[in-house]
């Protein structure tokens, strides 16, 4: 049995490892298209802050793949022929598979703006992008960041530490609109302004023009900002182009069932390229987050190795460190109609917590949460949501003090009352 995994990010690597762990004899080929050994985009912000070297971003040690008899092939897949069960690489190599896992990830969207192709406009996605940004973001240089989403915010610290003059332009009415609500996004904006960042929300970039001393970023409010470097971080899109005509069903990403299988039984998809079930809504979405990629990878790997594994959807969750202010959101963080809420909001301390409960028979079940300025035991929010624990009397206690999430979890999972 030959398994080919296209894409060497976290989802692909975990799929390969899971197959190997489950099945010691199968042949495994992992294909990656970048020059560096498999690395983690999640670690790039820490490379930009110069906390780590490039090798610190590597997903595994360099000998790991050989040690686990995973054949690593550096190359880019041009197309697949699902009926012949072959992958064609750009260099002309053809590889035959019995089972295929698509883990090709996503690529930054390039917004249709005049000047987006100028040489000093970069996205922040690959190691190569990080090298370019490091070279251009010098002290006192003018840097404009387009997009205050997850990626934009997580690299703010590195830019501030490099002592650049930084302006952030976000189309949405608040920072990180797809992850944080008004209260959390508002506090985050104030935090950044206090740290000397110029934050423009509800503002669009109309064009990036060349000027004698650098670039000029024109905004829709009539202002123009001088820039030596523009970083474009306006979202990502699944890498599915090479699958055109393959017969594999694609919507926003590759559609997968709860076993990570596509419409073709021997083809799986995981991570940012996959459009799988969301735990909270039951809808099929591309989540593009690290925990979902690795959970997908594990489930696909088990199934590819002959086990039977499935999930009931992936919980959408994020944790973001913006200039030291840490925020998280989970599941239905925006709440459900008619559901109760437990909230503390202390703007002067940059502290916020909002717990969302379900309705009807789930009225005492946590379905979503937002935290800001809180880091201890946040993982238990996942446990409470995914386990659908009925909180009973603890619901009111959480409404009185949302900080007691860990108490609520421990009390609900340990037998406190039965104690002798």
């Amino acid at each position: 049995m030959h398994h080919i995994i296209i894409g060497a990010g976290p989802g692909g690597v975990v799929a390969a490892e899971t197959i190997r762990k489950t099945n010691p004899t199968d042949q495994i080929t992992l294909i990656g298209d970048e020059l560096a050994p498999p690395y983690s985009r999640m670690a790039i912000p820490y490379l930009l802050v110069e906390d780590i070297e490039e090798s610190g971003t590597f997903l595994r040690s360099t000998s790991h793949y050989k040690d686990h008899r995973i054949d690593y092939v550096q190359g880019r897949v041009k197309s697949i022929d699902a009926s012949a069960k072959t992958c064609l690489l750009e260099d002309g190599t053809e590889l035959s598979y019995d089972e295929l896992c698509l883990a090709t990830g996503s690529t930054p969207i390039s917004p249709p703006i005049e000047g987006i192709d100028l040489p000093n406009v970069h996205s922040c996605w690959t190691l190569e992008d990080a090298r370019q940004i490091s070279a251009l973001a010098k002290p006192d240089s003018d840097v404009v960041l387009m997009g205050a989403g997850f990626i934009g915010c997580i690299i703010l610290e590195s830019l501030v530490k490099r002592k650049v003059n930084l302006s952030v332009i976000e189309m949405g009415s608040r920072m990180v609109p797809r992850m944080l609500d008004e209260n959390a996004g508002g506090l985050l904006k104030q935090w950044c302004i206090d740290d000397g960042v110029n934050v423009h929300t509800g503002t669009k970039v109309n064009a990036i023009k060349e000027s004698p001393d650098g670039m000029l970023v024109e905004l829709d409010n009539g202002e123009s900002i001088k820039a030596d470097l523009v970083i474009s971080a306006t979202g990502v899109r699944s890498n599915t182009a090479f699958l055109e005509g393959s017969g594999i069903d694609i919507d926003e990403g590759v559609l997968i069932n709860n076993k990570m299988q596509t419409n073709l039984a021997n083809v799986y998809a995981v991570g940012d390229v996959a459009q799988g079930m969301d735990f909270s809504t039951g809808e099929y979405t591309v989540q593009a987050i690290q925990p979902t990629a690795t959970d997908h990878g594990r489930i696909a790997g088990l199934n590819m190795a002959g086990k039977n594994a499935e999930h009931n959807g992936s919980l959408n969750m994020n944790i973001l460190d913006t200039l030291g202010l840490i925020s998280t959101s989970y599941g239905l963080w925006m709440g459900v109609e008619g559901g109760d809420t437990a909230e503390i909001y202390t703007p002067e301390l940059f502290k916020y917590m909002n717990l969302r409960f379900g309705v009807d028979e789930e009225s005492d079940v946590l379905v979503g949460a937002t935290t800001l300025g809180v880091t201890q035991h946040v993982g238990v929010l996942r446990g409470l949501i995914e386990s659908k624990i009925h909180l009973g009397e603890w619901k009111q206690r959480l409404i009185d003090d949302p900080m007691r999430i860990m108490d609520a979890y421990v009390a609900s999972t340990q037998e406190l009352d039965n104690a002798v």
Partner: protein
Amino acid sequence: MQKSLHLDPAKCTGCLQCEMACSYEKLGEFNPSRSVIKVFTFHEEGRFAPYTCTQCDEAWCLRACPVDAITMDLSSGAKVVIDDKCVGCKVCTISCPFGTINYVQETGKVAKCDLCGGDPECAKACPTDAITYIDANATGYDRMKAFAEKSLPSANTTS
């Protein structure tokens, strides 16, 4: 024989010796706020409950780590954070459904229970046997672990 921590809320008096011992072992100072075993207080029930990582088989923290900074110690079964590799991205802290791996602002890294290399100080410090380190099969801890894991629908696997 694999051993694991057995935590018995009924025997816990809330004396916090475990938190003192844990922080002293890890940091060389008595600093319960940095202990990775925590005693939770339930005034309503008049109970205390010590709680820490179950060293679960799923190891969500380990799998979610983007830089391979969490590994399994083969002798104790503990999932251990390698400080030199941890970049402080905190993805493990939202992935662990038990809330037992946490970010430490002072170090910029995460911290969790590593069973002190197979000789946990918390168990030795506990004066009432609320924390014991015993044969894994005999611990109610396994039941708790099983409950929590079974209840997580993202993990269902049958072979």
